[in-house]
């Protein structure tokens, strides 16, 4: 399972990659494994505003519908519409071609409140092991 070190993570299993004042967002390798085959991704329109920890979209897999939570506040400047026809990219390449939205951050320092790769790895291990 992958936990790229250059990303930040939410407890809801989204990842965030900073590119200047923009933040690229997707769901993690752990999330896509948990969900199983993704069959549908619903993303916001370009221009939509998102608030940190509000839902910005929905992903449906063969197992469940799951809300997606914004790691930062801001405006959506790009959405990966390829996922409309190829939702399986989320499974195949969750950190690459499976990216979901790009947000022009209102407060890019919000990223500092997210988990580091090491912290997220610990969090996932706890989630998997406790019964």
């Amino acid at each position, binding site marked *: 399972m992958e936990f790229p070190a250059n990303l930040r993570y939410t407890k809801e299993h989204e990842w965030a990659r900073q590119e200047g004042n923009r933040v690229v967002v997707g769901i993690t390798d752990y999330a896509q494994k948990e969900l199983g085959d993704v069959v549908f991704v619903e993303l916001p329109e370009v221009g939509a505003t998102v608030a940190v920890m509000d839902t910005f979209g929905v992903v449906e897999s063969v*197992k469940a*519908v799951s809300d997606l939570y914004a790691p930062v506040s801001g405006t959506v400047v790009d959405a990966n519409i390829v996922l409309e026809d190829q939702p399986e990219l989320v499974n195949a390449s969750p950190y690459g071609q499976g990216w979901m939205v790009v947000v022009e951050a209102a407060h890019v320092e919000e990223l500092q409140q997210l988990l580091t790769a090491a912290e997220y790895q610990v969090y996932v291990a706890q989630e998997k092991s406790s019964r």
Partner: protein
Amino acid sequence: MQPLWRFINTGAREAACNMALDEALLVVQEAGAMPPTLRLYGWRQPTLSLGYAQNARQDVDLTACHTQGVAVVRRPTGGRAVLHDQEVTYSVVMPLVLPDGPHTITEHYRRIGMALAAALQALGLPVRLARPQVRATPAHALASPACFAALSRYELSVAGKKMVGSAQKRAQRALLQHGSIPLWMDRQRLFQCLRMPPERRAALVQEAYTTMGAVNEIASTPVTLVALHEALRQGFGATFGVELVEMPFSPEEWRLAHHLQATKYATDAWNLDGAAAWRHGQRSVPSL
């Protein structure tokens, strides 16, 4: 003393009301204001419920539904079409993480599956709780617009026939899982309500006799609604180690449900055009 769960039996209601009540329960659970809840319910008229992302205009024969007196509603959960009629419908809302409870999606299906299995076994049905298949290819998963035709997660079967169709919606702190436990099943009617070439329909109906099951097709003596209700209540109590206490919906919860019913589940935008179109329409409405 055992931990408490909430139990509600809302009886047979309109399709939109049923979905609104399930979403209201999830909202309340998200707020952390309520113990985990088991709701049992039914349908005032036969109803085709669709998965969250299902294309209604592509998959549903709306004329046939109208002719047959079948209502159509879109669920907040995923999956495919289910025809609700003579059945018990269950919904469970619970935290994503319980101290001794399931944490992962599959674990939730397994634990709830165990409760359902306990209920059906107590009624004399030899149910199996099937393990998840290693990988369902997208092509296989989309082969049929009907839900019961796919056995894709921890699910209950008798002699290979799927007995319960369940689906899950996960939010930030809580999840909703609901499912249909048919007492009787009209396979012909289900596929008549779905759009497809007649020869495909005939083939799917034939196949459905081997893949889809109903309680009273298998039980040696007919199981009543009341007996199934009681068995479910016992099954969940025993499996989760909890006492289920009857707690009806509060006035606030009813207000929330009525709002969801009126603005979402009773609208063509949500049911027929889909979630994205409905949301877009919501944004265009000036807020009061």
